[in-house]
């Protein structure tokens, strides 16, 4: 049976395509795409389509796609009705708590305000520390929040830390490590188990190979 794979557009797209190519999948069309959104694999019975990160979960939960490749950051913020079967170890970064230099929001007494693009992640993190904070949703350039005095700290994704540093912010804690994950629709796993497991183990082989290469 044929597999549909939903790939997250953008940051993860290229690295995921390279891994698939290395695993013997025919993804040339994916690498040299125009405006098309759906691509057939030239080697195997697989169909890919490119979606935004949040939509990846939606497509998987509805079973429109069997398999999705999406960042752990997106998974942590929403959805839970899928199997999360493999860590591709690409697109690595982390969720951090940041604040202005010398103003650790975790040490502040009284009312604390946290700006973030990921309110659910922030809520869970502070709840697990037993801290009662006000969370303010910001859509972009979260670093501006503390600088302009909108909030005392931020919860955000950090790759290199350059943006943070350039805006005079410091990291005070790591909330979670993040990387790209392979998620699977629950019904697809039952009804197309063989195909799904082949896809997973093909990619798992490459993950292991890379891990050995890095040692």
């Amino acid at each position, binding site marked *: 049976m044929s597999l549909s794979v939903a790939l997250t557009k953008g940051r993860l797209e290229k690295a995921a395509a390279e891994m698939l190519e290395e695993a013997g999948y025919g993804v040339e069309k994916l690498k040299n795409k125009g405006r098309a959104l759906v691509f057939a694999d030239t080697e195997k019975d697989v169909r890919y389509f490119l979606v935004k990160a949040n939509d990846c979960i939606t497509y998987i*939960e509805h079973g429109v796609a069997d398999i999705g490749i999406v960042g752990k950051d997106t998974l942590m913020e929403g959805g*839970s009705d899928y*199997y*999360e*079967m493999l*860590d591709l170890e690409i697109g690595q970064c982390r969720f951090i708590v940041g604040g202005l230099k010398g103003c650790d929001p975790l040490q502040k007494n009284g009312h604390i305000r946290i700006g973030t693009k990921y309110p659910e992640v922030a809520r869970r993190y502070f709840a697990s520390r037993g801290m009662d904070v006000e969370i303010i949703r910001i859509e972009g350039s979260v670093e501006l929040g503390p600088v302009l005095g909108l909030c005392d700290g931020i919860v955000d994704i950090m790759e290199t830390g350059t943006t943070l540093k350039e805006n005079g912010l410091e990291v005070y804690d790591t909330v979670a490590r993040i990387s790209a994950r392979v998620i699977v629709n629950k*019904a697809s796993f*039952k009804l197309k188990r063989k195909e799904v497991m082949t896809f997973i183990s093909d990619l798992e082989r490459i993950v292991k190979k890379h891990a050995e290469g890095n040692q």
Partner: protein
Amino acid sequence: MKQIQIPFGMRDLFPQECAVKSRLEERISRVYESYGYQKIETPLIEFYSTYQNTFTSLKEETMYKFVDESGQILALRTDMTLPIARLCATKYGNVEGPFRFSYCANVYKVRQNFAGKRNEVTDCGIELIGLDDGSDLEVLSCALDVMAALPVANSTLEIGNSNFFKMAVREAGIGKEDARQLADLIDAKAMTDVREKLQTLPIDEKARAFFEHLPLFNGEDALQEALKYSFAPSLKQEAERFVKLAEDLNTLGYQDRFAFDLGKVPHLDYYTGIIFEGFVPGIGTAVLSGGRYDDLLKKVGRDMPAIGFGVKVDYLLDAVKEETETKRQLAYPQKCLIEALQYARVLRKEGPLELVRDDTIDKPEVR
């Protein structure tokens, strides 16, 4: 003009869908009836406290709640199992079991907005109350017969066992909170997180290997794998019980229509034995689900073992394409109305008939 809307997650069903749906319900109900289940109805509204006192991990935001005139909180039922358990414990308090009840009723859950999910679905199921796990096979047969009665090809029933995980946790000496977290990760087959979580637990290598592989105890060699990794005699015994269950199901002629997944460990504080889910191609979620819940009746006042399952009929609508019959019509001019109604009375005995007024003709005619 402003159009009147319906609340989130609700849906109107059009005639064609209604026809398909009621035929599905008939097919399902016929199987339950043939197993000796008696249909019952319970109120759509229960006290919120009934749910609150029974389910320890109740998500209150998923319930529709409102207040009655005396200030008590009411809720729309989220399932039929609790109402039936309540009914068994209270209204049948003096009657000895076992009880075989079936139902076909709407249940309600508030789901995430804009996710394309239904908040109101029709659940058609059975509850067998008062028999221990010796009745598992009977109920599994019933579930498999229901799946076979659905007009879809290649459906499969997946069977798990919540005891297997609970036993392993006990044997390995894992604490309650850690066990709950581990169960969530294993149930989501979150392989990376399972491994990370296991790193933090002080358990031996054999136990670690067992839990690491548990999410993948499915597919053809599920039970052999489970036997291989079982690190205590009680686990081996439980795995062997499942090998026997598989043989029994094959003997009964159900081969190729069921599979095992011992890594299925949802709602640990609810299910106490086997759990199972039915899947059909084209539908991204389970259409049938059920299991054994021997501790539930105790919480509503009568200690009895119980098992049950239900089919979410609305989920099937997208997978089932049934032809609707074409209706006959009787056309008539207004001047022949009485004659037409008399003729129609005769014709209706043979099947549905629709009257159509047509003043261009002279006498009634069937189309």
